[in-house]
């Protein structure tokens, strides 16, 4: 197996808009493409980034800090991809 399967990566972003249904869908579609497990944290709430329903239920609104944490061989790429989507998607809203 290439890479370190226990690799952990983490980054945070402050949302420029609410995390609505369509951005939640973009996040889940992107996260599901990685082998790493990916978790979003907002305040005390946690969500599996690959579950669109869990991401929607996170209640992540404008100004909240969201931490993206991934564990697995492609963890850094997963975190980078999700931070990019969170930055772009919450600006658009929907």
């Amino acid at each position, binding site marked *: 197996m290439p890479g370190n399967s226990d690799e952990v990566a983490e980054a945070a972003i402050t949302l420029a808009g609410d995390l609505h*249904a*369509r951005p*939640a*869908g973009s996040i889940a*579609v992107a996260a*599901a493409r990685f082998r790493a497990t990916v978790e979003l944290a907002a305040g005390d709430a946690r969500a599996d980034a*690959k579950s*669109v329903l869990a991401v929607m*239920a996170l209640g992540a609104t404008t100004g909240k800090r969201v931490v993206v944490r991934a564990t697995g061989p492609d963890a850094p790429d997963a975190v980078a991809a999700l931070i990019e989507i969170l930055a772009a998607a919450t600006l658009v809203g929907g």
Partner: protein
Amino acid sequence: MSDGARVGIVLVSHSAALADGAAELAGQVAGGTVAVVPAGGTDDGGLGTSIAKVRRAIFAAHAGAGVVLVPDLGSSVLTVRTLLAEDSALPEPLALADAPFVEGAVAATVIAAAGGDFTAVLGAAEEARNARKL
């Protein structure tokens, strides 16, 4: 996850408007790369289910990777079960998801859009039973 054909989704409802709306929502949340085909209402446009509509929807949704059907209530389930039991010419694999209608449709479509295989898409729909809204 694969970059080949996507698993298709069929939404079976007593109401054409409900099936159409759920298909529109699921398609938009998932980014529009999956065939989400509504099969709502009777053949004459009333409230009820239609074996012929479900059958057409299955063929419309099938892209080579299978089709997951999400039913709303009661006779939607019976209609799909009757079709699956009596029609041997349907595409495979094919399964009826034991899932809430809107949440199951959205969760299944998102995993299909991500390239999830038939088992993953069916599992995503059924896991929606456990999802909390709050």
